[in-house]
């Protein structure tokens, strides 16, 4: 089969780590954003919506560049973080942030679609039973968006596995440090004869995301069963 080099293995484990972290960290934010968009009466909803969608519309490289502008040593956020001794760019954290930003619109949109279909009467029922809005959020809206959240998470996970443009700008393509699978694939395809290894890494990506998909389906099924 494929003889992966140690840096390839590092890329694989890094990719998994980045995708998992990005997805896990984004989930609560994505959920809150979807909630705001669906249920709140904020005046600036359309604006918030487009802001969230921004990373989708822009080429990932541009997204990466914009992130670099704010997170780099010259950027306002980067400078602030530097003061407390945190450096983001050129570390795996940068890859996580790139994936988060690029996958966030997908996550929010998925959760939103699920939330929009929740029967208002259930929310009303929970309120009349004494639940505050945040209680209703956790005890009714969250579980009833469960499947949509899972779907959004697996979408985001997959997108993270494939994320290239923003990552390479923000994190660099440093083997063993920030080189994720797509970056490794890029290196391979830029070398004549690297196709076979690139293919191998693609397959790993596919297997990883397939695993998540199966896990997702399993969770959905258990979820349904729990509900009976």
């Amino acid at each position, binding site marked *: 089969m494929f003889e992966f080099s140690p840096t390839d293995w590092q890329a694989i484990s890094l990719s998994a780590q980045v995708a998992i972290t990005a997805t896990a960290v984004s989930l609560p934010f994505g959920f809150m954003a979807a909630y705001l968009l669906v249920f709140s009466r904020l005046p600036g909803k359309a604006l918030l919506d487009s802001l969230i969608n921004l990373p989708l519309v822009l080429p990932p490289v541009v997204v990466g560049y914009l992130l*670099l502008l704010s997170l*780099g*040593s*010259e950027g306002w956020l980067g400078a602030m973080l530097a003061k407390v001794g945190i450096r983001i*760019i*050129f570390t795996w954290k940068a890859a996580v942030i790139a994936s988060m930003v690029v996958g966030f619109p997908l996550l929010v949109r998925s959760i939103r679609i699920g939330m929009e279909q929740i029967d208002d009467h259930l929310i009303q029922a929970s309120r009349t039973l004494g639940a505050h809005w945040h209680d209703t959020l956790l005890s009714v809206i969250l579980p009833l968006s469960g499947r949509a959240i899972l779907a959004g998470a697996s979408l985001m996970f997959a997108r993270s596995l494939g994320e290239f443009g923003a990552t*390479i*700008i923000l994190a*660099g*393509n*440093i*083997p063993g440090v920030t*080189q994720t699978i797509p970056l490794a694939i*890029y*290196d*391979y*395809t*830029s*070398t*004549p004869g*690297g196709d076979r290894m690139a293919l191998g890494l693609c397959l790993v990506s596919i297997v990883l995301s397939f695993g998540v998909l199966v896990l997702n389906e399993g969770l959905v099924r258990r979820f349904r069963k729990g509900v009976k």
Partner: protein
Amino acid sequence: EVRLSVAASMTDATRELIATYQKQNAGTTLYPNYAASGSLARQIELGAPADIFISANPVWMTYLVNKGVVAAETITNFARNSLVFVGKKDLQVTSLSDLTKLERIAVGSPKSVPAGQYAEQALKAAGIFDVLQNKLIMAKDVRQALMYADRGEADGAFVYNTDALLARKAKILLQIPQSLYDEVVYPVGLTTVGEKNRAAADFFDYLKSAEATGILQEYGFVVK
């Protein structure tokens, strides 16, 4: 109708070449396609329409010759470039050995970027590659490496002379001695399809004209 596949680093120069050429030859339309050399080579290999291939390094040209899509006899070294080290003005870098004092150095990823390969050669030849290895920030292409240096995310970067001219803040601190790395050449060749295209051959000849040479030099390339 002439279709060109042009390495991204030649984008600006090619644009001007086409513009001047077309002033004299209004009847020919030129379709340039700008991307990384590797991408272009793959496209041509898989049947994308192209008459002329301008590559940023000989490797991909050879690759296409081996695939039998570029006519080997037409290949000429169209332009040359040199490797320089850019960085902040006030950095005390006067020789390669000074680089060991730096924190972070941007370089094109040696696996995929030719400039990165030349830089690696030079560093190895100077015997400081192992010391610097953990300080290297690998970029997707030379422009990205330059951008890191320009924005101060890296102390400096190995880039081509032509790219260094685009920098806003970073200055050329060091010309890397040509003895330390292979010559940087931009080969140009006609594809097997292009050979049969009269207009293509005509433009191909124009690329070697004095006017073309002048334009290339304007953009910082070296033409022998």
